[in-house]
């Protein structure tokens, strides 16, 4: 996928997150993009590693800086949390370049934004880490307790209760995603 084509999809994700009342800071975008790529198989081509607040892509972080430099997005201050990402003056121009691409991945983007848009950073961190654990750490048999312990090993500031809730939520989203994709 070309850089601008990928940026059009990220922009669409941002717009859909905002429609779903998301705060839409960088962490919200990072975790939603992780779900979009890993669970919904949208080929964004980012490499996610366990880092800040769960799965994190340095490439996506750089891409957001680039989009800001190109006025595709802008940061808007909304106390009391960090800034919110909003479409910039070049947003429409970019979307007009890639109508087919946007149409092709519309249902996946709308789904992720609807499922995750209402979550705060703390919840997104645990849900995205849960997905990471299920896909990369403890695969196969659904051992809830083992997976919850694994989440706590990676992120000791997440409580056991939060970890269990996150795993449950992750499963719900994964099941719905499978239904959406027909797999």
């Amino acid at each position, binding site marked *: 996928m070309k850089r601008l084509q990928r940026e059009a999809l990220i922009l669409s994700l941002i717009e859909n997150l905002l429609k779903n009342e998301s705060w839409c800071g960088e962490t919200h975008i990072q975790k939603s993009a992780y779900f979009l790529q890993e669970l919904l198989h949208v080929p964004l081509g980012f490499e996610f590693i366990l880092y800040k607040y769960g799965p994190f892509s340095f490439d996506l972080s750089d891409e957001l800086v680039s989009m800001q430099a*190109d006025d595709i997005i802008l940061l808007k201050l909304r106390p009391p949390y960090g800034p919110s990402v909003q479409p910039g003056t070049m947003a429409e121009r970019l979307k007009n370049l890639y109508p087919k691409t946007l149409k092709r991945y519309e249902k996946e983007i709308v789904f992720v934004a609807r499922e995750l848009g209402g979550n705060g*950073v703390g919840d997104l961190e645990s849900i995205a880490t849960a997905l990471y654990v299920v896909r990369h750490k403890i695969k196969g048999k659904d051992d809830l307790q083992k997976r919850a312990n694994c989440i706590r090993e990676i992120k000791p500031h997440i409580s056991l209760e939060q970890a269990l809730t996150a795993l449950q939520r992750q499963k719900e989203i994964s099941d719905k995603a499978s239904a959406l994709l027909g797999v």
Partner: protein
Amino acid sequence: MGKHLHEIRDPVHVFIRLDTDEREVLDSRPLQRLRNIHQLGLTYLLYPGATHRRFEHSLGVMELATRIFDVITDMYNICPDVQHILPPEDQRKYWRRVLRMAALCHDLGHLPFSHSADHKLFPDGWSHERMTAEIIRSKEMERVWSEITPPLRGEDIAKIAIGPRERQKVGLGQFNLWETILSEIIVGDTFGADRMDYLLRDSLHAGVAYGKFDHYRLVDTLRILPKGGSAEDSKEPTLGLLEGGIQSAEALLWARYFMYSQVYCHPVRRIYDIHLGDFLEKKMGKNKIPTKSDDFLALDDNKVLVWIRESVSNQKDQLNELAKRIFDRMHFKRVYGRNPEDQRINPQAADTIYKAACKKFGKDSIRYDAYKQKGGSQLFPVQLKDDTIQQSIELSATLEKVPIVFTEYVFIEDKHLNAAKAWLGKKHSEILKSRKETEE
């Protein structure tokens, strides 16, 4: 009894101290090679004072990283919410030493003249970060680490020196929260000692005042803090500041912007870097830069300068032309630079003009260059006097206004410059509108 603590004079930090074990590391072959690697490549061709080397920068990063470590692990400075990530008291001495050695070694894999075109010059799958990790974990260095008291693990040093960004490509293990903080001390986008030292050192040697900021105050106010104070926010720890350090942080982030826009992205500096890359690529041929430790360590600026001189003095040498561009200052000239007006017409304006210029004047006479800022977040937690946490950007009137550095240039061989300017003056608008996007 021999002296155990040794002082080195430094123009930025005045004295840098290291003990006898650490001096063994400094005396090792990979570290000594950095005496012959210019920190700013060929920048001295336009800023004559910028002849400093990676060697003194590495010492400076070690000094600053140590100061940061001592401040953030001081028992009076630890926020209760993050206490759990710190290792037990008796292990901190080990990690302090690992951090110092990682800071000292973080640039070992740099190419001659600190050249940044890793992808063109190294074989596939290699980068200067991977080279750095390989050297740190080499038999030669493992022997040095094993003789330090207590012995250090090369793997730990490599992880902290490289950081999580390149972890997978370099083949390093997962980072825990403590290791993440340690690597942030060195390579962190906002408060990394690497960045702080190069801004201070490069501005001093280049003779520009832009890179200065109050690093004493900044380091003194650094703390490990949870990301946010609200119930909604993550409690994950990261490097943040006390409220009193916010002006020093503003100065740091503006210094970075000024140094990138005025020095690092100066078009003449950028084109010399391209010419050097062209020369090295052709000189190394298919074999590329050697990754075997002995061969790599033998390759430094002195060797490359000799190659350039030899090529310049032999008119039949196939690299004669490329060498003259550097040695005789026959560099290409800027014919186009990225600008907001053109971006509005065509989001890939510079690339479009580059391709049109190649068609018109021939690919060999045209070069394209882009620098895009990576990371460098202005967002970090700040602890207020009442111990609550707020985001930096809400407390500072200027942080959100620091521009993002994104430069693009199209360069042309001097003999075509006037013709190219006339051509571009006439066809500019037509070229920009000519590009059609495809969605395959």
